[in-house]
């Protein structure tokens, strides 16, 4: 296999960005396994992927922030935890063995498949009990729900648990070079009781800053080759842009099933490669 050319990197990244945006999983989850299939070193793939995560986060967060769904205070509060997590994660990633990274990535892919499988449109209800800490942190807000035409008020809870868990989400993001958006949304929804719209849009904002912290570590270690980063940033951005356009029209079971199979196959493949040592 020859070294990956500009054209190949661009093509792989467009597909990864497209699939990532359509499935809501983000580009990195598809990009990194794809790059390693073309015999790129997994650490280089992780470093290049996390740069592209900044681009996709900026793009999607820009749109949502202006629609007033994002909660900047909740975002800022949780970013304190995710950036530290990302720094630790990226530092571990630099020293970790390749096989370990393959296996971990495979596990994350399988977990992503599971969340996609169990994804339902749950009814959101404001948690009844809100602890004093979360009130003190002003983790509240409101947004206009276009479907029902009503203004929805919300107040997050259990910040004492959500914060430390977001450190873990940041750690995985830095370790594996992904946005880890699905994990962040899970924490927002299940632990802190945020409405789904607020949790996904706020997660988008947090991802950018978290990815920047991780990127700095890989950049300082000389793991990011700007010449290779260019086609990846351009490709993932273009793919994500197209993916979000198509997302509005194609949201059915067949598509979801297709993503599920892609994630399962990639996940198993990475774990097998990690265990067998065929890196």
């Amino acid at each position, binding site marked *: 296999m020859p070294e990956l050319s500009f054209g190949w990197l661009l093509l792989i990244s467009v597909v990864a960005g497209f699939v990532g945006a359509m499935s809501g999983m983000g580009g990195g989850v598809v990009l990194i396994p794809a790059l390693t299939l073309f015999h790129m070193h997994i650490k280089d793939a992780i470093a290049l992927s996390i740069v592209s995560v900044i681009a996709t986060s900026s793009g999607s967060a820009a749109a949502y922030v202006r629609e007033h769904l994002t909660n900047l205070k909740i975002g*800022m509060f949780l970013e304190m935890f995710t950036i530290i997590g990302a720094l630790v994660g990226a530092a571990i990633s630099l020293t970790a063995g390749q096989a370990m990274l393959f296996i971990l990535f495979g596990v994350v892919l399988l977990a992503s498949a599971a969340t996609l499988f169990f994804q339902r449109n749950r009814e959101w209800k404001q948690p009844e009990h809100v602890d004093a800490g979360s009130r003190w942190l002003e983790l509240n807000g409101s947004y206009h729900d276009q479907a029902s035409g009503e203004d929805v008020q919300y107040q997050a809870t259990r910040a004492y648990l959500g914060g430390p868990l977001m450190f873990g989400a940041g750690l995985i993001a830095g370790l594996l070079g992904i946005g880890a958006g699905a994990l962040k949304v899970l924490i927002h929804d299940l632990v802190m009781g945020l409405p789904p719209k607020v949790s996904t849009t706020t997660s988008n904002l947090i991802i950018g800053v978290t990815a920047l912290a991780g990127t700095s570590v890989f950049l300082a270690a000389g793991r990011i080759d700007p010449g290779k980063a260019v086609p990846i940033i351009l490709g993932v951005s273009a793919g994500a842009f197209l993916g979000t356009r198509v997302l509005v029209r194609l949201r059915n079971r067949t598509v979801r099933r297709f993503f599920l199979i892609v994630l399962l196959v990639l996940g198993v493949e990475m774990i097998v490669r990690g265990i067998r040592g065929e890196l």
Partner: protein
Amino acid sequence: MSRADAGNQSAQGGRFDMRTLVGWILLAGLLSSLALLIAGTIWQYLSAGKLEAEFKLEGSDLYHYAVSIARSALAGHWRPQTLIALGICVLLLTPYVRVLVSMLSFLFAERNLKYTLFTLFVLCVLTYTLFLR
């Protein structure tokens, strides 16, 4: 309206709105970064006949990287790599500027000391990481 709600409801009444500002910063940062990367790649292709630019920046932090680019650009040494490096710097600095502007907004527009300090913490960590080597 209590002060606690101000951050999330300042859209109403035509007052300063942090979210609109943050949205424009992110969009402007991303688009200018992509434009620089595309321009640099086209230039690289026209001058060298291939799309991928060659770089050497091992063991450098973002600050020194940015300074060396700025220095060569100021000295009139514009190369395709200059545009590409600038594009990557703009991309990385976009979330950084977003946090900086958020801090100033919490401080001056909302007068919320608690969140000014939270944002300052994030800003300090990010600044430190940008100087990592």
